[in-house]
Structure formats: C-alpha cells, structure tokens
C-alpha cells in the first residue's frame, strides 16, 4: 500500500506531507535555468504526540523539508495538510501559533540586539497573547522557568550566554505561543556533547508535559534514534526508508540506510572492533544533477540497469515499515 494513498485519520494524524516538491532555481546565463531539486516528491505523516526523526546527509533535503512544512519556503509542488486542513496556500498567520521551529545555530537564531525577555516576548506580542504588560511579564517568566532559566536572565543579551543556554532561549521562544507541533531543525548539533543530553532530555520532558508533536531533524543518528518513535531516511531529496526507530536501526532494508547506520561510530571499543562496516564508495552526487532512476544507484552495491532507469517507489514491506528499492529481497537476504 503506497503511503500517499493512505487515508489520514483526522484524529490521529497531525501533519501530512503529500508529494512535496521544493525546487530552487539556479540560473546559468540568460536562457538556461537549472533547478536544485532539494525535495522531490516526498510523502509522509506525523501522528499526534509522536516524534518523527528525519535523517540524512548533506543535500538530502531534510532541513528544507522542515522549513517547507512551516511554509518558510513556499513549496514548488505537493500539499501540506495540518490537522486535516490543507495549508499549502493559505495565510499562515493563525498557524504560526500551532506550528513552531527551533533552529540549529543558537548563535545566529537570536537577535543580538534584543534582550532575552524581548526575544521570548516577541511571539507573545505578535500574536497578542497577553492582555496586559503584567501578563506578558508573567508569561515570559513562565517560559524561562520551563526551560530551566530564571528571571535574572530576562534582561541580558544573547551573547552573554553559553550555547546550551541560548538554545534553551530559542526553545522558550518557540513554546511561548503554546504550539502543538515543533520542527526541531538540528537543535543540538552545534552544542557541546555534555550539554546535548540536557537539551535532549528537556525536549522529551516538554513533549510529555505539553503533549507536543516533533519533527526531529538531525544528522546524528544516535540521538535521533534515542528521541524518535519513527525515523525517515532521506537521500538526495527522496525518502528512501521509513520505519519505527528500533526497526530502522536493527532491521533496515535499504542499502543506503544500511551503510549509514554502519558508518556511525559507536562509543564502545569492543563493539567497534567487532563491527562489520559497510563503507560506501564515492561522494554524494550534486542535487543539481541527480542520477536518473534511483538516486542512490551510483553508490549502491546492488545497482543494476533497472535501478539506473526506473525510480523505485516507497512501498510498505511490513507493518509501518516503508522502503524504496528494487532489490529489497536481495538486501533482506543479507
């Protein structure tokens, strides 16, 4: 059963992405216009209350996907359906309260000229959530407390804080509108290892407390596996595999997923030595000129003629586990 045709149960599915396409024009000369096909026909659902992880390497389109769902980029094609409503072309203002984003770079995502209090207060002001100045201050303080900061931080400027603290401020800002859905765009990649765990735990706690739904985009698979219920793997603008986290890590079927997982260094010397590493040859092709047929055919050990001409469709191979490959039987056999 193809994912795109699955009926979305209004109660359970919060975000639905259907045949999403995001092409960025890159013009060469006066007449030729080339496109970077950042996302090329991607479909998936996110259930209410779950964390869907999205992994992949550079050029795969995962960050673009997160931002396109929030209409920070206007999709070139396809549809985005939020809570049963097609929001692909509507005015996003009312939805900004429900869908928020936390960014990767805690140094760049906070306006250096605004105090922390004002940064968190901005969404409150824009959406007119506070009736009085007192109420506004109260709401700001509540957000600060929720992320482990306190009132004395409200009058300071972002540059006075460490990376982890700035990320907390960014999270507090996203929470200020009391959203339902948050796109976490590589929220811990720029943080020190010892701080990452703090922030990951905070994400989990907030999800429990506030009933949030996450799209967790990251390139660190260990973290994604830890925090996500399900994981989707993207390669060069396509979704190649989608399954429950545990299933994806231990029972993956797509050759790319397989090599991706095996490439992740494990912080355990004994396991590392035992491990069978599948090292891919070559580099990721340029998204300006993706291979025809299956995007992965240039690096895939199982690629044949069919792979070079025919694009495999994302099909369900077992309950909730989807993969796009012509040679699933061969791979599964290994």
């Amino acid at each position, binding site marked *: 059963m193809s994912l795109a045709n699955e009926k979305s149960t209004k109660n359970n599915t919060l975000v639905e992405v259907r045949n999403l396409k995001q092409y960025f024009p890159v013009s060469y000369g006066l007449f030729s216009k080339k496109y970077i096909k950042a996302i090329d026909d991607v479909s998936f659902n996110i259930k209410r209350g779950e964390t869907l992880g999205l992994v992949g390497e550079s050029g795969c389109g995962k960050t673009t996907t997160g*931002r396109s769902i929030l209409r*920070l980029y206007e999709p070139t094609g396809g549809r985005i359906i939020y809570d049963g409503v097609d929001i692909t072309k509507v005015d996003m203002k009312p939805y900004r*309260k429900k869908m*928020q984003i936390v960014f990767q770079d805690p140094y760049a*995502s906070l306006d250096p*000229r605004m105090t922390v209090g004002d940064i968190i207060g901005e969404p409150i002001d*824009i959406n007119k959530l506070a009736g009085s100045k007192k109420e506004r201050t109260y709401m700001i303080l509540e957000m600060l407390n929720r992320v482990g900061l306190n009132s004395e931080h409200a009058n300071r400027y972002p540059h006075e804080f460490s990376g982890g603290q700035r990320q907390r401020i960014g999270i507090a800002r996203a929470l200020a509108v009391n959203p339902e859905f948050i796109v976490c765009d590589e929220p811990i990649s720029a943080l020190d290892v010892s701080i990452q765990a703090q922030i990951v735990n905070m994400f989990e706690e907030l999800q429990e407390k506030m009933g949030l739904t996450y799209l967790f985009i990251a390139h660190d698979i260990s973290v994604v596996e830890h925090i996500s219920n399900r994981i989707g793997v993207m390669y060069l603008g396509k979704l190649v595999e989608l399954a429950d986290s545990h299933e994806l890590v231990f029972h993956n079927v797509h050759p790319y997923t397989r090599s991706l997982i095996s490439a992740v260094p494990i912080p355990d010397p004994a396991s590392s030595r035992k491990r069978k590493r599948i090292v891919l040859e070559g580099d990721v092709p340029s998204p300006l000129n993706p291979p025809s047929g299956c995007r992965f055919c240039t690096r895939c050990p199982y690629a044949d003629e069919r792979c070079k001409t025919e694009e495999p469709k994302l099909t369900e191979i077992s309950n909730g586990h989807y993969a796009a490959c012509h040679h699933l039987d061969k791979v599964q056999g290994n």
Partner: protein
Amino acid sequence: MDNKKKPLSFHLDVSDFLPADEREKQSMVVMRESVSFWKDGFRRLRKNKLAMASLVVIIIIMISAFIVPSFYPYSYEQQIRGSENLGIMEYSDAEIERIKSGEEVFPHILGTDSLGRDLMIRIMVGSKISLLVGIVASAIILVIGSAYGSIAGYFGGKVDMIMMRAVDIIYTVPDILIIILLSVTLKFPLKELADNVKAFAWINTVGIGLISIFVVFSLLYWVGMARIVRGQVLMLKEQEYVVAAKALGASDSRIIKKHLLTNSIGTLIVTTTLQIPSSIFTESFLSFLGLGVSAPMPSLGSLASQAIGGISSYPHRLMAPAIVISLIILSFNLLGDGLRDAFDPRLKN
C-alpha cells in the same frame, strides 16, 4: 588494580573531603557583568582620544552657536552706525566716547563688517545655521534613505531592481543645476505663500535659497544612504533570527523595523554622522555662491563670500568663517570615524 598511593601533604584537612553543598558550588559560577551593545561601543569610543577631542570641539561650537547668541550683546542683523569696518578688538570713535563716559562696551572680538555688524555674533549665528542645515538635512536623508533602502533590500527581486535603477538615475542628475533651477522657479510661488499666508512667514526669514536646498536634499541626496542601508539589509535578512521572526508570524514591517534596522543602527549612526559635514559643506558652498541663505541671515559660506572683497585689508573676515567651517567638518568626520570603529560589529571578538 594497583593503587599507587601518593603521599598526602600536610595541608589536607579530613573535613575537606565532605561533600560540598549547592551554595558553595554556585558561588564558583559567577555570571559576568551585563554589557549591552551601547555600553560596549561607548567604552571603545572613550578610548579613542581623537574622537573624544572632536566631540568636545563639536560641543563647544554648538554651545557658541545655540546658547551664546542669546546672551550676546550684539545681534546678527544689528547695524551700528559709525562702527563700520572695525578691525579685531577695535573700537569705533563713538564707542571710545562711550567707554570714556564710563559705559561698558563689549568689544568686537572679530571686528565688524562694512555695514557695522559685529562679525563674532554673525559667525556664531552662521554656525548655527550651518549646523541646523547639516543636522536637518541629514535627518531627512536618514529617514528617506533608510526607508527606501530597507524596502528595496528586504523585498528583493523585481521590487529591488526597479527601486535601485531609480536610484541609479537620480545619481546621474546634476545637483547644482537642480538647486539653481529650483531656487529660481520656487522663488515666486514661495514668496506669494510667505506674504499672503501668515503661517508661512518664516519662509522669508529662512530664505528661499535655503528651502530649495532642503527640497533638493530630500529629492536627491538620500540615495547614498539608501544604497548603504540596502546593503546592510541584504546581509542581515539572511540571518537566522530573521527566519525565526518569520516563523513566529512577524509581519514584514515588524521585521524591517525591529530586526533589520535595529541591527543596522551602528551603520546608520555612522553614516549620518559622516553625512552632516557633507551637508554643511554643500550648504556653505551654495551660500558662498549666493544660492543659500538670504541676507541679512548669515551663513558661514555667505560670510566667506562677503569677505572676498576686502581680503587684503581685512583677511580675518575670510579666515574666521573658513576656519570654523573646517573645524566643524573635521570634527564631525573624526567623530564619525571613531563611531564606526567603536560600533563596527566585525571588530568585536
């Protein structure tokens, strides 16, 4: 595991090995003193001796231009019979008579001109005019330029292209020509307005020439500021906090005002400060040509122009306004440079 025991030194106290409590730990973690962008910038500015000296000079000139004339015993249009063409600190015969009779006569520090007007007060009032023109013109340029530049830079694409082509065209217009044309064409309608409508009487005092200058500044001179602001906005709008603001639902005007322009303030201040001497110079030069303020209102430029005739006998009449113009322009330039060094974000580590 072989535990090689290190000999313990005498200074250790067994009680030291008790667990530390939270308070003791926190006392080790002190957050540094809050430093805002302004404090940091001004601290750097204070270290720049040249800039601070220029600031002092500007303040002195401003005091003598705006405050001292109210207390000065002479006024700029006052023509004192018998005191024509006095030299520096010279008294006319009539004044010497008055001193002899016990009256206190304030000296003409720089002498008088051919109509008996005290030169010192005229220079001070002239400085006031020059400074006012400089500041008001720069303010006009700032407002128009930043609005135009930020809109062009923010929206980009076709909007940007059209707006900047307009800027390119305006750049090619010869400004002096326009000023002359304007002052000629506006002369009669403005005079009618000034004579007939009470509210516009000030037009006569200020002078048609000056008004033409302001009109031209508003029409033409803002383009430099627009380009600079556009450049800043282009750079800043790619910053992630702008995307974040969009994600929060901020409107375009809010983003431009609160995020883009606020973060450009350093550049705006510096550019405006450097625009002031340029405006002053333009006004002085125009007044020198007779296209600026109208008599009897003095301007440093017109004073210089009037002094040309008697340059060999009364050189101080040219030197004084020239030196003052130079001082004003130099000080603003040095201050502007100092401000740029102090507030340039790239110099921040």
